[in-house]
């Protein structure tokens, strides 16, 4: 159980480390900042980037919706798996009698430009997160979180689709912390790495980045699989926001203000 530090409620900094643990302790007026400005700005830039990367990425995929393992793969080699969609190129054997229009020009331009925006945003967030203590305070599971009892009870509450308590409006529980850490420090680095490992010029300077993945086509396949993992995260993330109070969670991530007042869904 954490101590409640009332003095923090009037500061502009994120104070989720001092989360109250019962509804009685939650102030009735909402003057505090649940998410710092940097978290909010980088969150929404990342959201826009993710949508742009997903749309352009899927558009690129349909020019060859087949995936391989190893160095090479083409219409004459055995795919690892195929996506059952029509292709934007005539030669690809998809089973469909028609081809979709070619839009790889703008898709590739948009994909790579957005990747730059995402990397710059991500670096800003990473550097700030380390120096502000954001990762340590808000995302690293705290000592008490890591007890077996706490973990099982949190999982249990999720399994029963229980609405989160007031404390959850102020701090992340152990499942959230683990998931966010996984997304920030495993999935995002992986998607950038596997993306760069597909670049013939980049790997000419850093061949190990593609060799350790098992080849250029393996990198492409992994890039696609990590995308699926990120889309699954996004789906669960949005569902959880809706379950726990769409309005208040959106308000917290837009204005920074959290309201723990009883909100009806």
């Amino acid at each position, binding site marked *: 159980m954490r101590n409640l530090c009332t003095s923090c409620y009037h500061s502009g900094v994120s104070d989720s480390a001092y989360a109250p643990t019962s509804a009685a302790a939650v102030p009735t007026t909402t003057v505090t900042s649940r998410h710092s400005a940097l978290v909010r700005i980088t969150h929404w830039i990342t959201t826009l980037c993710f949508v742009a990367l997903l749309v352009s990425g899927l558009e690129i995929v349909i020019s060859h919706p087949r995936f391989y393992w190893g160095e090479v793969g083409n219409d004459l080699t055995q795919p690892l798996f195929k996506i059952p969609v029509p292709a934007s190129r005539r030669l690809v054997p998809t089973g469909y009698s028609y081809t979709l229009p070619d839009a*790889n020009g703008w898709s590739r*331009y948009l994909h*790579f430009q957005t990747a730059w925006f995402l990397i710059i945003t991500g670096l800003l967030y990473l550097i700030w997160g380390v120096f502000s203590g954001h990762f340590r305070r808000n995302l690293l599971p705290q000592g008490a979180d890591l007890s077996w009892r706490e973990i099982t009870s949190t999982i249990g509450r999720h399994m029963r689709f229980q609405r989160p308590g007031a404390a959850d409006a102020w701090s992340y529980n152990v499942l959230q912390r683990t998931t966010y850490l996984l997304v920030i420090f495993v999935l995002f680095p992986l998607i950038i790495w596997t993306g760069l490992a597909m670049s*013939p*010029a980049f790997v000419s300077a850093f061949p190990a980045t593609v060799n350790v993945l098992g080849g*250029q086509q393996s990198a492409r396949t992994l890039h696609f699989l990590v995308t699926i993992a990120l889309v699954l995260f996004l789906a669960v993330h949005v569902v959880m926001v809706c379950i726990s109070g769409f309005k208040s969670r959106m308000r917290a991530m837009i204005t920074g203000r959290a309201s723990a007042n009883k909100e009806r869904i």
Partner: protein
Amino acid sequence: MSDLSRRKMIKTGLVATASVAGLGAAAKIAEMYGLVPPDHGGLYGLGETLTYASQRLLTRHSLAREFSRSQISKPPFANEVEPFTDEFKRLQAGKFAEWRLAVNGMVARPGSYSLDQLKSFPSHSQITMLQCEEGWSYIAEWVGVPLSHVLDVAGALPQAKYVAYYSFEPDTWESIDMADALHPQTFVTYGMNGDDLPVGHGGPLRLRLPRQMGYKSVKYLTHLTVTDNLKNIGKGNGSASADFGYAWYAGI
């Protein structure tokens, strides 16, 4: 507004101003060192410039990965090509004996070379991957003469910044900067996997550069123009694919 958040806002403003000023200076320096691609205008110009500049800085001299003979794709996949014209078929019937590669622009000795002449130049080979922007790839052994040798023979002038190269197919041309033009793996290719380069793969002549996507490896190569300015060619974007909406630089 509390003091703390005001201080924070001032700090953020200062950082933002410094970043914008820094970007302006960076743009000037980039222009000076040839790190700005010809298709730097428009909606995606910033991303293109960042990609080209950073890859050029990282990869000026790096070599594309080469593979072992056992990794050569059998058979190599040949992408769709336009139907051949009568003129092409006539040249093909004559075993391309009349095919010529013209070299002009900023060169001391403009001229043209037959296939036999090109084959008399030092022959090099590489086992590299051809990667298509669509997502597929194959590995082949490519035989040819390094473009740098052809440029030496023609006497490319030191002011040259780009080499534009043209296909027998109408409206098909690309260009590369001198870092790629003089790169040891950039070939004027006439052989593949121990044989003449098949027409399906761009025979009799194909420009081959393994550090960029397949569409920069133009098939049916007919001439090269050495230049210091791409603005007067096509729509000024540096290549037919850039005019068509694809990036001029295709290292990614």
